[in-house]
């Protein structure tokens, strides 16, 4: 238990340091921002910080960094923060799409063939129930893929793994932000 909390604490500290660093760079970069710009700066630095804690080992962190770097102004910002080679360019999606299309067409044929066989074996109603269940799962997987950054081209197994990692990182992010927010709130309240 102690080791676990120790690890998460170090993760939180790392995230916090990078986040504050990013915010400082941003505020030096651009003075006198209005509230929306400030919010954007905070969120950007938070996202970058939490993505960099993974050191580009997970798909979502790479995608997140790449998405942020797409914007030109942000790119300079990103490169300033992370002078070391953590920012990795996203893979060319075309190659992946081609491969997945080929595999998908094979799977479609196979699936239709299997449903024919099962329909003969099991009777029509069971097949329908099964297909409905599959459709539900498929729809939800689609939604999940849209939520997790970089989840579009992943198959079910790695998608769940990425989701796990992403959830943990999001929790760290929320936790640290919440504490900082309450600290700031208390400081301004007592002043």
């Amino acid at each position: 238990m102690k080791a676990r909390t120790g690890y998460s604490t170090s993760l939180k500290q790392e995230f916090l340091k990078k986040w504050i660093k990013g915010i400082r760079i941003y505020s030096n970069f651009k003075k006198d921002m209005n509230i929306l710009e400030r919010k954007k700066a905070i969120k950007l630095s938070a996202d970058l910080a939490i993505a960099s804690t993974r050191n580009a080992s997970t798909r979502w962190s790479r995608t997140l960094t790449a998405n942020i770097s797409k914007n030109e102004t942000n790119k300079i910002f990103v490169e300033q923060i992370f002078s070391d080679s953590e920012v990795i360019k996203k893979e060319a999606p075309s190659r992946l799409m081609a491969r997945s299309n080929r595999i998908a067409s094979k799977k479609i044929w196979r699936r239709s063939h299997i449903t024919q066989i099962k329909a003969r074996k099991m009777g029509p109603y069971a097949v329908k129930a099964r297909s409905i269940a599959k459709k539900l799962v498929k729809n939800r997987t689609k939604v999940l893929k849209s939520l997790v950054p970089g989840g579009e081209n992943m198959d079910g197994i790695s998608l769940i793994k990425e989701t796990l990692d992403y959830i943990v990182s999001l929790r760290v992010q929320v936790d640290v932000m919440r504490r900082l927010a309450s600290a700031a709130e208390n400081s301004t309240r007592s002043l």
Partner: protein
Amino acid sequence: MDVLERQWMNMKWQQSATHLNEDYRLSMFSIPSIQDQQFQGLVESDQGIVELVAQAKKPDLVMENGRNNFCRAENSLNYDSCVYWNGSEFEMNYAIPTTASCPPEVAVANKVKEAALPEKLGSAARRESFKKRKSYKARELKVVAEEQNREKKAKGRVEEEDSKITKQNSNSKRTTTTSNNNKETSADNSKGNSKLSESPKPDYIHVRARRGQATDSHSLAERVRREKISERMKYLQGLVPGCNKITGKARMLDEIINYVQSLQRQVEFLSMKLAAINPSLAFDIENFMVEEMFLASTSSIPTAGVSFDVINPSHIQFNSLQQGVSCYGLEMDVNPPDIMLRRTISSPVLMPEILLESSYLNASISTFSSSGFTEAGNVELEK
């Protein structure tokens, strides 16, 4: 309860969004105090993960019984499409113990172990692959052995009875068995070839065909895939709060989606709040305090010790005339186990406000002695 919480949060968040153009400061301050509790309820502590570890450790002992039960259950099922979750209980038993020990590590997302995790899974897959290889070979050997036995019997019969029919029978049997053999080997080869073409490394995934199950190579591969998915869903169950009772992929995915969405919305909301609070984005002092707080929270629970750690940074802050921020260093809005912590720490929170009025050192000594932190009081005196 979870649905209600979520709806409540959504409502509040929308409210906060609409109130933004008005006096946003007030609305922001009112919300979080309530929302903290909500968040605590939502953002579970590590209890779920502890449970998952306990669950993961159990199957190792029950493996044999579980396996038998599963075999019996399989016989009663005609197909295994809807057994995603019924099978998963036993699939845990089937899983190699090393993978069973993986969930807590994944849930914790330990950096060092995470790098090793894909390796571990890979090695588990390799071990599974060896098993499958052996199962194929075992089946082949069995067939060959049967074949040889039949040949011997046939020979014996021929010697005894000298009947051509039996010889023919044995021959036909042999041919059928050999044809079966060929089919299996061809299936094996095709499977092996397909695997080789898919992955350059020879890590086959080997699955033993269970009783009453199709031994088709495709269905075996599908079963492996399903098992992997259900295994990972189990990890997610431990991570997402309130998912212990839910069985079934669709509902689990639903919960996961909701959770991820709520976390993302929280990030948005908190970043907006931070932007609202700090007009200048000056986070230096809070940074220092938060770091101290993190360091303090890692120490063990003996209250005197913790209060000692916590009060020290507050003194540093007093010297630098940052009164209000020290409140934060003493404030611990952490997990339920820290309730005792909170009680002991809550009393010093009153201190800084008193210190604002009077001179620092004297007042702090008096309040320290009154609140009963003698250790801290000694430290103060030494200072």
